[in-house]
């Protein structure tokens, strides 16, 4: 028997030790990331809350756009990033939400805050209904179906003009601004700035809620279930995961935010019509942002939203035509060279740990 080595588990293990392949160890501070995030989030919110006092109207609108894209991308990521079911439905939800919100205000059924919340719940409800048949479709079939349903929603809203005013669009009452209060008690100054920038603060709150929900999902068992579906749906079922139910829940959760964001957006721009809110670019923005930052992560969509929105704004300022070329080119480059996005790049370099808290 000389020359014959026995394969025992112990020998295997010994070889693994000797080969010294890297076994990732999480840094100690990883455990405290939740607290770090809380501090960062509170700091960012405090700064952003004060921001309208420091900035001009243009920059406040730019910040509102960043917050809007954070809400869109973060919520898109809840379904599509974690579970791998790429959805082109965000444009549809955004459009439906903006119409539900705008019409509730237009027909004076509710004041604007309940209108925004109802718009979110309306889109979540719609997602619940269409998720059941569509989430059985895999990969590109689901993506294409959602693209088609978004378009269908646009056509329905356009055609149903007795309710939606069709192609002429919905005008919303213009917000009456107060003269700025820059002296006196701080609370009066704050109330004044909040009143004059209602939509900005609403979007800030929505983005914060989206981030908190995304963190809760990403670090929970529910998030692990979604990741399992992304990695292998059959294996996930073999583990006893009720995949259909999980996917529909994520879909409904994910679609609340574009709905509510659409309603705030409608109020912000003051006029919406079907071509402007059911624009496929809303889906593409959410997707491109998540891909750039890092799909299936918590921070990725946030980082992507800040980077992509600010950079594209700069390019747009320089040359409005070049901007689309730039956006398209950037997506191609990211997908080709850093398919995991900015976060994966940092993780590959070892600058960030591989953990679901990132």
């Amino acid at each position: 028997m000389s020359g014959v080595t026995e394969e025992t588990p112990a020998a295997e293990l010994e070889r693994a030790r000797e080969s010294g392949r890297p076994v990732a160890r999480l840094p100690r501070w990883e455990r405290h990331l939740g607290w770090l995030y809380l501090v960062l989030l509170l700091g960012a919110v405090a700064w952003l809350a004060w921001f309208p006092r420091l900035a001009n109207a243009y920059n406040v609108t730019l910040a509102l756009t960043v917050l809007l894209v954070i809400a869109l991308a973060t919520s898109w990521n809840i379904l599509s990033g974690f579970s791998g079911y790429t959805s082109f439905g965000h444009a549809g939800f955004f459009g439906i939400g903006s119409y539900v919100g705008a019409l509730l205000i237009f027909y004076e059924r509710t004041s604007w805050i309940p209108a925004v919340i109802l718009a979110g719940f309306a889109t979540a409800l719609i997602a619940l209904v269409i998720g059941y048949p569509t989430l059985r479709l895999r990969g590109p079939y689901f993506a294409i179906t959602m693209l088609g349903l978004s378009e269908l929603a646009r056509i329905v809203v356009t055609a149903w003009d007795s309710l939606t005013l069709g192609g002429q669009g919905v005008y919303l009452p213009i917000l009456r601004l107060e003269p700025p209060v820059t002296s006196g008690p701080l609370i009066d100054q704050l109330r004044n700035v909040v009143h004059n920038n209602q939509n900005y603060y609403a979007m800030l709150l929505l983005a914060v809620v989206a981030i908190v929900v995304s963190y809760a999902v990403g670090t929970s068992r529910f998030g692990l279930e979604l990741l399992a579906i992304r990695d292998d749906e059959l294996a996930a079922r073999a583990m006893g995961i009720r995949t259909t139910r999980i996917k529909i829940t994520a879909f409904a959760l994910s679609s609340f935010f574009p709905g509510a964001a659409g309603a705030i957006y409608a109020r912000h721009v003051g006029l919406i019509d079907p071509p402007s809110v059911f624009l496929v670019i809303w889906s593409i923005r959410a997707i491109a942002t998540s891909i750039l930052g890092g799909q299936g992560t918590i921070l990725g969509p946030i980082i992507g939203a800040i980077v992509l929105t600010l950079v594209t704004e700069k390019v747009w300022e320089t040359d409005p035509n070049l901007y689309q070329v730039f956006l398209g080119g950037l997506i191609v480059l990211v997908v080709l060279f850093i398919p995991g996005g900015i976060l994966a790049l940092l993780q590959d370099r070892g600058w960030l740990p591989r953990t679901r808290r990132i």
Partner: protein
Amino acid sequence: MAADGAQAQSVQTQSAAAPPANGAPLLELRDVDASYGKVQILHAASLAIHPGEVVSIIGPNGAGKSTVLKAVMGILRPTTGQILFDGQSITGLRPDQIVRRGIGYVPQGRIVFRDMTVAENLEMGAFTIADKGRVRPLMDRVFTVFPRLGERRTQRAGTMSGGEQQMLAMGRVLMSEPRVVLMDEPSLGLAPRFIELVFEKIGELKEAGMTLLLVEQNAAKSLSISDRGYVLELGRNRFTGSGPDLLADDRVRRLYLGG
């Protein structure tokens, strides 16, 4: 023909049902038909696994071996026939309900959750365990069976070798404390030394009293560690018998074991 006759007592063609070991079977398929769309794969497939047994299903490609496992797991719904677990019908139940009853499933192709760590994969395996306090001891037990997994608990599963991933898939199924484990082609596509290791581990699980149903291309190897085997052909039972008897049977050897 003389040789066939000699074997005929122990290896039966499937016209006569084969009553194997004593007692009630833990898992039983009775005349199960199953189809993918309009293509019928299983034609009255029947088999039984008793507690503590290792049973192999062998047969050529397209015989419906994997389909049997998918039908048991509720991934594919049988069109007719009955599947019984512990004397109760589980026909038509959802996969999660079947896992909760105590049936573990290792899908083909060493499917692990690639982006998750080894420890997270094992946690997913314990998905149906309600008492989360049990997860830790269960994981420790898996690490004693598969020491390599313990070494690599924070490594991403997708970065491990094929053999290690198969070990993980096998360890993961144990996390749900199954009463019977179905394994689909556990040795498929592995390096020879890992094939040895896989069968060694299956042997260890058997020693520990685990009930196992194996589907294997590697028929000779699989039968040699099995108490009994079933040979499927085009979705029908063809032969059945004890592992050694099937291995020794000329017809089975000629058709499925390569001489």
